[in-house]
């Protein structure tokens, strides 16, 4: 429990800084693939290119398939871990939020019985359907870094709520900044 309190304190401090420094107006260009189509370029059928997972032919190199965790039948752990906040119209984790994600990874590695649900949210700007996808990607961006830091993928589940569950119902920059977030919930079996 001491360890949990320590993590919670670190996260609280990081969050204050992060909310202050997270960009909110301009768009951020997503990093990564050039055209978004990975290996399957030039009109080539992707199923004929590269290695294929025989258990699931829709999976390709580099995929980290989602776990199928039924959280309804798990026990929630009472930890108030502050959300990871994002800039406008992007799922890139801002540098100021990275320490928070690092602390989250440390917690998940220290507490091996924990399972994590990451819920992505968006502000109300943009279309409803696009924001559902964006919320999912925000959750997955946090998941990807946790996996890189050594957390087993099968312990993490993602969920998007799009713009439907704002933390702050206001219609201004201050509210939108709080609403672009990845919320973190912990469970044990």
């Amino acid at each position, binding site marked *: 429990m001491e360890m949990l309190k320590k993590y919670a304190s670190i996260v609280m401090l990081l969050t204050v800084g992060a909310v202050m420094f997270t960009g909110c107006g301009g768009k951020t260009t997503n990093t*990564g693939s050039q055209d*978004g189509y990975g290996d399957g370029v030039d009109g080539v059928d*992707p199923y004929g290119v590269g290695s294929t997972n025989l258990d699931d032919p829709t999976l390709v190199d580099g995929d980290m398939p*989602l776990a*199928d965790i039924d959280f309804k039948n798990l026990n929630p752990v009472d930890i108030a871990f502050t959300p990871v906040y994002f800039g406008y119209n992007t799922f890139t984790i801002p540098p100021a939020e990275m320490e928070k994600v690092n602390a989250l990874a440390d917690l998940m590695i220290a507490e091996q019985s924990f399972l994590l649900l990451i819920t992505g949210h968006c502000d109300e700007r943009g279309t409803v*359907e696009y924001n559902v996808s964006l919320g999912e990607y925000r959750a997955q961006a946090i998941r990807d870094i946790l996996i890189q830091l050594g957390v087993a993928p099968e312990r993490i589940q993602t969920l*998007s709520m799009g713009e*439907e569950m704002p933390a702050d119902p206001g219609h201004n920059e201050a509210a939108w900044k709080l609403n672009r977030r990845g919320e973190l919930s912990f469970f044990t079996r």
Partner: protein
Amino acid sequence: MKKIFSLIFVYVFALALFSNAADITITGKADRGVKRSISFANVRTDASHGATEFLKVLKNDLALSVWFVETAPSSASILISGDVRASGNVSYNLQASWLAGTRSQNFYKTASLDRLRITAHDLSDKFTQTFAENPGMASTRILFIGRKASSKNPDVYVCDSDGQSVMQITREGKICLSPNWIPNENAFMYTSWLTGSPVVYKVDLNTNSRNAISSDPGMNQGAVQSPNKDWLALVLSRSGGVDLYLKSTKDNGLKRLTKSKKCNESSPAWSPDGKSLAFVDDSRGAPQIKIMTLQQLFAEIKVGPAVYGFKESVAPEWSDDGRVVFCGKTSSHNQYGIYVMKPTANAKANSPTLVSPIDNADYEDPSWAPDNRHIVCTRILNFKRQLVVLDTLGDPPRVLLNLAGDWYLPAWSDKINR
């Protein structure tokens, strides 16, 4: 000067000669459609409330179609006469005379009183097809998401194309989104967080049954059925990225269409021939519509709205006649507007046309009416959402519902049997 007057005289004379004299061309916008003048002065009723209601619904439908304007018999190009009764059943026996009496046709039907509105809608569509030679939209319905002023969570609703007969379909107490009709069925798909995470369900409105049709781990969203009903196009996150997939309706087999680890796909829309998909991705930073041919997976036709300088383009939907409606932002118009374009290989010949008003509102989530003329969309002003119907030929927009609350994500049906 005389020459100019002579030319104008010849032009006006030719117009008078070759046009139907009693039809009215609404001026003010060059491409606005010709309205057919129609008179019901010689229609008799049995003075029942039902008969009066039947005629009211019929006339309103014809007005909403914007192909007709009701006039006095002396100036009408289409004269309707006959009887409407609504005692016990609703029945009509009407005669139409047009082209100066050179053409005539009888229209008659009997139906139960509980189908009064449906029967009137059906007759309106017959008139539209007969006199305007265009498909009607009165018999169609519109699905949408609604959040009543007193509700915390949204639900799926449906109404007739005139905004009446509003019915709440779901009562889940959870988030639900993306209702889309299944072609030629009285059924639809939508995404619901009923079990906690987004699952795609099919609802049959004839049997009021609901079945989960995609419940993979993570996100299941935006499912649309192909015109031949063999495939669903939908967005899944099962691979650890947000990607477009096809799901076979025969064996549930999956085909993955994109594998974009670092970009976000959404909003698939089928072309009417089922050979292409329009969708949205943000691989270049801002969300933009792309079009993929399915014979050649991963091939992008380079004629999306981004070619025309749109800062963002989202929410595509294809009309039956091959045009794509979408909402977009340009450098000169920073609010979402509704645009229509015809995607072809020749980009310059098909620049998008703005069909929504330029005001302080955002216009989003467009959906075609089956008449290929009207579009229903969400109008957002001061963060309140309402549904409006736009006319691509220039008649003024109309508000679909006059109900308190938030109403959005509309989807217009084809002509459905019910």
